[in-house]
């Protein structure tokens, strides 16, 4: 089923929960709503579910406006962060509840509950109460309950945040696989960008009720459209700093005190005419060369802190008053205070307008 949100807005008095959200979701697509807490992603999801009534705008399911359709008539399944299992019912009753409300015949109900439970790997737990299950098992029950009525749309509200890290990884791939197999259109709300990046076909990044970007994960990562997205997507986050744009003959330079980066012509052209811009560079796009070599190439700085991440070292390099995070090979022996040289990959450099906070490259 295709879902379309059209200038969707939710307000409570002066408080705006979701502001003018417009996006469309293709049939079978997996879309993540990503943003910090309080950004309006859950509000939007609950409007799609029919729990909240939009103040303005439209929700369309397959071209049909469903603003006034009650949640129970929308044929959706939803999985909650708190699982929201009914504590006084057994697992069987929990999963069977949507069917019971549809007045399905007992035999069919039994069969479908069993099938869904087996699919979720909880077939042997059907007579337990939710309180007797582990967090992962409870989440599978919740998922089973959402799937049992064969919904045309699946909604996830931070379903994995209450699980421990390892289980989260397992469930992540299971949900993704399940969604691919069943082909159900899905919306997945999360504040964890790794979840969003790994699972979603497209990500809607939201901030303060507004839709900041709506694009496939790689696109968001490589072509961030705003400063907010650049800083929010990617871990460790992108380095963002103010620079001045200077022209030296043919060359275009971005300078900040002793730091000088040459802008490649095709990118520099977008910055021409601006004096001050914000530059962004990801930690993996900076190469770190130990020692104070004589070469003038790159910028000279000193090691402030080294954080070992296992596979890499995250090095905080100080250049005057600027701190830059750099991913470095852990085999390089680095001590606090060591002089280092940084080289920037100009082709990976992001440029933003400090006034509008929009990218100079991708708009």
């Amino acid at each position, binding site marked *: 089923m295709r879902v379309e949100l059209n200038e969707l807005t939710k307000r409570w008095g002066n408080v705006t929960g979701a502001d003018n959200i417009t996006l469309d979701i293709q049939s079978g697509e997996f879309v993540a709503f990503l943003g910090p807490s309080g950004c309006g992603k859950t509000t939007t999801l609950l409007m799609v579910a029919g*729990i909240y009534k939009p103040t303005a705008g439209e929700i369309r*399911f397959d071209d049909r406006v469903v603003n006034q359709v009650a949640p129970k008539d929308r044929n959706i399944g939803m999985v909650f962060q708190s699982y929201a299992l009914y504590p006084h019912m057994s697992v069987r009753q929990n999963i069977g509840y949507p069917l019971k409300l549809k007045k399905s015949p007992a035999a069919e109900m039994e069969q479908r509950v069993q099938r869904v439970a087996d699919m979720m790997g909880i077939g042997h737990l059907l007579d337990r109460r939710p309180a007797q299950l582990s967090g992962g098992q409870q989440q599978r029950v919740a998922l089973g309950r959402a799937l049992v009525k064969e919904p*045309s749309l699946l909604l996830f509200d931070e379903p994995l945040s209450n699980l421990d890290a390892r289980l989260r990884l397992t469930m992540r791939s299971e949900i993704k696989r399940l969604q691919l197999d069943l082909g159900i259109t899905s919306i997945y709300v999360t504040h964890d960008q790794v979840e969003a990046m790994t699972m979603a076909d497209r990500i809607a990044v939201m901030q303060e009720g507004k839709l900041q970007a709506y694009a496939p994960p790689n696109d968001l990562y490589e072509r961030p459209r705003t400063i907010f997205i650049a800083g929010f997507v990617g871990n460790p986050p992108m380095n963002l700093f103010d620079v001045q744009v200077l022209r030296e003959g043919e060359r275009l330079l971005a300078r900040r005190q002793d730091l000088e980066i040459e802008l490649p012509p095709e990118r520099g052209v977008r910055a021409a005419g601006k004096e001050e811009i914000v530059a962004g560079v990801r930690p993996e796009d900076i190469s770190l060369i130990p020692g104070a070599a004589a070469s003038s190439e790159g910028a000279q700085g000193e090691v402030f802190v080294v954080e070992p991440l296992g596979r890499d070292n995250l090095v905080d390099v100080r250049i005057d008053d600027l701190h830059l995070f750099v991913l470095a090979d852990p085999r390089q022996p680095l001590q606090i205070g060591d002089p280092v040289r940084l080289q920037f990959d100009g082709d990976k450099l992001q440029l933003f307008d400090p006034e509008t906070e929009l990218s100079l490259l991708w708009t």
Partner: protein
Amino acid sequence: MSTNLTESATQAPGAGRGRWLLLAAGLVLLGVFVLPWLRFVIIADQRVALSLTGLQAATIGVVETTDGGLLYSSSFWLFLAPLAGIVGLALGALNLFPGRSAPWQGLLTLLVSVASAVAVWGAFSASQEVAQKEKVAVEAQWGLSLAFLALLLLLAGGLILLREASSQKPAFRGALDALNFMAPGTVLVIVFFFLPAIILFILSLTDLSSANFSEPWTYVGFDNYKRMFSDRFFPKILRNTFQYVALTLLFFNVGLALLLALLTAHVSRRVGFLFRLLWLLPRITPSVVYIVMWQRIAQQPPYGILNQFLGWLGVENQPYWIPEAPWVFVVLVNGFVGASFGMIIFTSAIEAIPADLIIAAKVDGAGDLAVIRDITLPLLRWPLLFVVTYQTLSLLVSFEYILLLTNGGPGLFTTEVWALTAYKRALQTYFGSNQWAYGAAWGFVLVLIGATLSVIYLRVFRFNDLVQEPKIDVL
């Protein structure tokens, strides 16, 4: 998916229950009213009229008197009732076909059935008047009772119809959903809170008493209020009320309550719990038994418990203590009940004080009393204010224990408080008659005072901030 949506739009949940109610109600009404009426009109002959049974006669508003003449009861409006039957029948039939209900049908049914109910009610009273002399009484009343019930059915049918019809309009549906939940409570509150408040006021403007009960009420303006304020004992009662509220509040509902909360917090946990529990006893003891206990405590020798103790201590003066010191006992009896409320509130407030705060104070060298003075009491400011306002309201209107203990005595108005005066004037055979209207005046002023205090109370406690918004929009 799309089929689902279409279905939900045309088929309202639980559709069709209303039509059967409407049909049944319509049939009953027609049976009771229209058939005898038609017979009366078609064969409009006095002899036929005379041969009507009591039931038929009464339901068409005609009653035969003993001297052979016909008496037309006052209910021209009674024709509304068969009309209601026809409407009910028609709408019921119309709704036998699916997808037909519309809000106006429900509204129409409601209007007609309410109007008819009023008419039938009028007819019923009229027939009762006649029935005091005539033999038709019993049957006629049965017929009208039946009609009345049928109209209630019609009302229910109309409501269901309205609901079914409007369930397709989401804005309507939300309000109606809440209405379903609120209806029983709202009806009871209206019938036993709001209507009585209005009746109380109207009553206070009349001279109704048990002496002129069967006559229509006579409007006397504000005479009852004038009489009340010029009553010889008015100042005394006012003083009594103030004394009762202030003393009980000060010494027990706040004073003792605070003391008990502090004391039970300073003994071991289990003992504290035990004592708090014991203090609940007065509250859950039936008032009648509780008062008997106090009377027995205060009795003269050799029965009284207090006097037995005094005897052991060698005290000579051993009277029956309640008439001796009525105010002491009024305050004691009420205070022992009232103290537990404040005690529970204060205790939970004290338990909410972080232990760190008290440890810090102790480390700084504060003693028990200093901790109470400098830490506990300042933190109890809000609960204190809450208990004071809340209990002022409760005490102002309570009189059950005084009624049982002293009934306002001994002697004239010694312990009579405002609420008790209102009650006794109106509902106790006092000086020979129930002066409902005069008592109502006393009562209404108290209601006004209470309402004013309540508004202040809601303001002080910023009531609006305490109400959380629902996190589901009703669709």
